[in-house]
């Protein structure tokens, strides 16, 4: 998921950084100052949730939940995910520093898209249908992220195309688990706190 420094070509790294800055700036613009406690708290929760290891087959994988983040935070997902990636890079050594832009775009853009497409539908749906839509958001965001990781690698040179295909394949189990977990989360949220999604930032 995290691409490391040095792997991508210069133009991909710079392009990613430019897109990330634009996304973060727009996300910040959409965020009121008095919503910072709420959004900070939610992004801390997503950070902790991404440390949960879920057993899948013989191994385990950690959740990303970017579909859910997009549903909950909308455009603010950009700055929130950037901060999460920055903290992970600086304190855990995950990923790298200069590729932070590419990594942010790869994870945050699918999140924002899912939020824009599906949030209103979820707000207006009964719990069962909301859960299915949540599952679609979870699967869709991971699929998009996988494609974007693959494209970032493939754009960096033909030699990376096998690695890009491998990255795509390795996301399939993640996709299934994310879809199921996100569906269950959305189901619970709609039942327990029906205004969760309408409450969140548009």
């Amino acid at each position, binding site marked *: 998921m995290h691409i490391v420094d*040095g792997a991508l070509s210069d133009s991909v790294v710079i392009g990613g950084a430019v897109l990330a800055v634009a996304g973060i700036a727009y996300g910040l613009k959409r965020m009121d100052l008095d919503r910072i406690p*709420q959004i900070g708290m939610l992004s801390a*929760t997503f950070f*902790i949730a991404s440390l*949960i290891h879920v057993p899948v087959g013989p191994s385990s994988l950690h959740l990303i939940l970017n579909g859910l983040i997009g549903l909950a935070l909308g455009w603010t997902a950009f700055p929130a995910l950037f901060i999460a990636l920055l903290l992970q890079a*600086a304190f855990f050594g995950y990923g790298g520093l200069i590729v932070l832009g590419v990594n942010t775009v790869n994870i945050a853009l699918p999140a924002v898209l899912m939020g824009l497409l599906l949030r209103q539908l979820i707000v207006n749906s009964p719990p069962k249908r909301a859960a299915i839509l949540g599952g679609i958001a979870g699967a869709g965001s991971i699929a998009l992220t996988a494609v974007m990781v693959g494209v970032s690698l493939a754009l960096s040179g033909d030699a990376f195309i*096998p690695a890009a295909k491998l990255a795509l394949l390795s996301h399939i189990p993640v996709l299934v688990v994310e879809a199921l977990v996100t569906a269950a989360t959305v*189901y619970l949220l709609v039942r327990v706190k029906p205004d969760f999604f309408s409450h969140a930032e548009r």
Partner: protein
Amino acid sequence: MPQFLEHSMTSWRGQQVEHKQSIVDQFDPRARVLATVIFALTVVFSKTLWLPFLGLLMAFAFALSASLNFRRTLRRMIAMDMFIVVMVLMLPFTMSGDALFHVFGFAASKQGFIHAIGIALKANAVVLTLLSLVGTLEASTLGHTLARLKVPEKLVHLLLFTVRYLDVISREYKRMRKAMKARAFVPKNNLHTWRSFGYLVGMLLVRSLERSERIFDAMKCRGYCGKLYLFDTMQWQQRDTILLLSMASFAVFAIASGAYVA
């Protein structure tokens, strides 16, 4: 769970508790962040092999002077290298060029081999420097540093809030996991496990949303009007200028020696 993923289960405590004071801590946080950025830019965009190698040696020097915990750092470096190991192993076979050796009839090209080594050197050099110079800051100090470096206020506030509540939420999460365990929940490969994790995340979100409302009310009681005042005692000293100047001369040296010409 494999040892190199161990950090994923540890709670979030910044570096405050575990990091021993070292020479690195005598430098101003701003100088450390800027030096890391200059270093990373210099190393990552180079087109030669010797510059990332030199960078890796410098990174080792930083790690030594930061007196990083050896085992923890090694575990993190290995965890990062797990991400690239497949790609690095594949590159010699997927990049065309002069054949170096053959494995099962597939030719490994010299160019691909060199490229793969370059990636490994760059990735390790940057991450090790990042962990030594920035990772040894407290997470909230990092926020204050970014604010001093003119990063937008909202982003800094968001970072500070996130960092402030990571530990709180982490404890909440552990409490809920303990409650699940007390009810005989064992994660397995089945739908029940995935649904339970989904409900766990959902409940965590509900609780943190409600907690954030209480916190916001408490903050308003104390006169919060959308601004946090950042107090810190950062003082730029001569050694910080020296650190930055030496990093800048490293960059200039790299440019002058033609490390960016393909």
